[in-house]
């Protein structure tokens, strides 16, 4: 918990940082050995008085590099917007709390252990003022204990697995994305509407995909479907065909699961190899990633997945986000259709943090954490809402379901559910290979 001795280091000049830290630690030690070490480093005391440092890691390399990189781009856009024009939330704002914002970012290589070390560094060595979450449930969940321990508020824009939030008493952290168990329920609905009777669920043996399966299987059964095959394949799987061979034998109407973009890719290619063509496919995360469609080309047509954002969604702040992003990353993106929803997710998470900070008016981790739990706001992501319960679990969002359909230059993203916002009718059954 922050105590008063800490505030002094906020206003001190850089040179006196060492002394105030020592003094604080001396006091802290005197207070009692019962205090866990994490407290010592993580409080207040930023890099300097006129810059607010925001720390995060993401997987810019490794198995989830697509996702990590695009999410980071969302962070970068937010930083850029705050510094340029004070961001989207306040009119004529001067930076954040009158200060510039700087991003301190590391590559965690999609490795949770590395992520933990990096957050420890951000908290204790770089002494960042604010924290943002990493990419993915695996790395995010792993970092929760140390962030909690340090008493720093944090938004997890890309942690949809709620296990840790449910099982532990987490005070400082919230998720700004819908829980995993809601991701592709619409695909199941579409199947049922079209007379589907059986479903196969194959997924990566990791936190998020497991959570997806755990959430969707009961839902499928409730809808009267029979689960004919369920399999968790290892993360370092090489050959997806062996997994799908077993699925093929059961001839299911719905095939869902996967893990990340890598999985969507491997599974789709394997499905083509073994000639698996059910009523509908639903791959989480990767299913609607532009990178996925780019890799498999027309094989993407008919594949569905969670679509948390698309350029044509009518969401609050979406146009500003879109324009700002295309301008900042004009070298890498020719067209908004190439943008990945993870950028929007990262950006939205930053906006939530921004709102909380503006509401509090200063860098006070406890107060910010409280704000994160109590605010409700609009964001350019999912259905445009952010609201969490006391556990920090997202309650207001439902993801859309997207599907790749034929377009002029190849597969195009269409939103097929919810019906009110749909841009096209879902294709059922799968068009075959």
């Amino acid at each position, binding site marked *: 918990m922050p105590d008063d001795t800490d505030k002094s280091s906020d206003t001190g000049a850089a040179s006196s940082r060492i002394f105030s830290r020592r003094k604080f630690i001396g006091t802290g030690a005197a207070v009692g050995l019962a205090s866990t070490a994490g407290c010592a480093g993580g409080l207040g005391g930023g890099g300097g008085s006129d810059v607010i440092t925001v720390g995060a890691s993401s997987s810019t390399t490794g198995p989830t*590099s697509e996702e990590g990189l695009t999410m980071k781009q969302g962070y970068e856009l937010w930083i850029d917007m705050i510094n340029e024009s004070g961001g989207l939330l306040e009119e004529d704002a001067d930076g954040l709390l009158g200060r510039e914002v700087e991003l301190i970012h590391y590559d965690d290589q999609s490795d949770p252990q590395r992520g933990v070390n990096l957050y420890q560094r951000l908290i204790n060595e770089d002494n960042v003022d604010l924290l943002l979450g990493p990419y993915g449930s695996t790395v995010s969940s792993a970092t929760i204990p140390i962030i909690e321990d340090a008493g720093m508020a944090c938004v997890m824009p890309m942690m949809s697995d709620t296990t840790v939030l449910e099982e532990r008493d987490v005070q400082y952290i919230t998720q700004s994305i819908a829980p995993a168990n809601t991701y592709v329920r619409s695909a199941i609905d579409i199947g049922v509407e079209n007379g589907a009777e059986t479903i196969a669920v194959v997924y990566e043996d990791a936190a998020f995909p497991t959570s997806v399966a755990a959430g969707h299987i009961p839902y499928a059964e409730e809808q009267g479907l029979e689960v004919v095959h369920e399999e*968790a394949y290892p993360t370092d799987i090489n050959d997806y*065909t*062996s997994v799908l061979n077993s699925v093929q034998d059961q001839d299911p109407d719905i095939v869902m699961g996967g893990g990340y973009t890598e999985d969507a890719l*491997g599974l789709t*290619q394997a499905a083509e190899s073994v000639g698996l063509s059910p009523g509908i496919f639903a791959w989480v995360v990767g299913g609607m990633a532009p990178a996925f469609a780019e890799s498999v080309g027309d094989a993407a047509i008919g594949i569905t997945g969670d679509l948390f954002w698309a350029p044509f969604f009518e969401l609050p702040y979406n146009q500003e986000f879109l324009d700002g992003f295309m301008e900042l990353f004009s070298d890498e993106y020719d067209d908004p259709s190439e943008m990945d929803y993870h950028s929007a997710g990262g950006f939205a998470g930053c906006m939530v943090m921004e709102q909380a900070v503006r509401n509090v008016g200063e860098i006070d981790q406890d107060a910010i954490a409280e704000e994160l739990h109590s605010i409700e706001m609009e964001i350019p992501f999912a259905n445009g809402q952010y609201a969490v319960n006391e556990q920090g679990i997202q309650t207001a969002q439902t993801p859309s379901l997207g599907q790749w359909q034929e377009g002029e230059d190849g597969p195009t993203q269409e939103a097929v559910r919810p019906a009110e916002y749909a841009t096209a009718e879902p294709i059922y059954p799968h068009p075959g290979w």
Partner: protein
Amino acid sequence: MVSIALLTELIVIGLFLGAFYGLIAIGLSLVFGVQNVINLAHGEFVMLGAYAAFYGWALLNLSPIISLILSLPLLFAFGALLQWLLLERIHANTELTSLILTFGLALSLRNLAQLVFSANYRSINYLTESVSILGADVSLNRPLGFAVAIVITATFFLFLRYSDWGKAIRATSQNPEIAKACGINTRHVRMVSFGLGAALAGAAGGIAGMLYTIYPYMGLQYLLKSFVVVVIGGLGSLVGAVIGGIGFGIVEAIGTYQLSSNEATMIAFVLLVVVLIVRPQGLFGRSDAGEE
């Protein structure tokens, strides 16, 4: 349980897989046979072969098979170089020293690859159309990989049998002292065989690159699997490596289908340990295996 049609399907898949594993195992067995060294970096040669195939594909639009023409000589030269530079120095030392040396080599290569190629996953999208072979629906690149593996293996056996270098290698494998006494430059033989081992692994790597995901740490699993193959087939026996490879491929295909890939692999390793304890020389290996 399993119908005949299904069994046939699994055997076909297993055969394709097995030829591939056999190719990797031959290289490992060859090096052991010639100089009593277990090359823990063998998997890294597979990885390098895969990356060579990938870059040939991505940068030069070469089919992975064509790029073998370029990558094989390169890997051969690299292998021979490593032998000359590192292994020759500890040649007279114990088995353990070479084990630790190749271990260090594996670490270095793996991480160098990560530095140079980045940790991102790569894949080659080549000949992925589905074909049906004896009831098994597989992508076209699989039977192609099988064919390549068979051709290279056959070529290698012919080379060993009929060429001068092949004879020299076989002689050195059997008895280095006598080979030397007969005027064979055992040092050169070691270099050539290590280079060949690397090239064979690289060829398998090219096939792997075509079929599977490519990433810097991919070598380890192939090393471990080829251990199982080589131990069961018999360290030092090339025939054992091929037969063991095919057998392993079929068992893995069936095991993965019945259980899951994780469990199938786990059983493979338990089997490895059992074989090491019960019959360390495997099926075709030398009977002095397992002892100092």
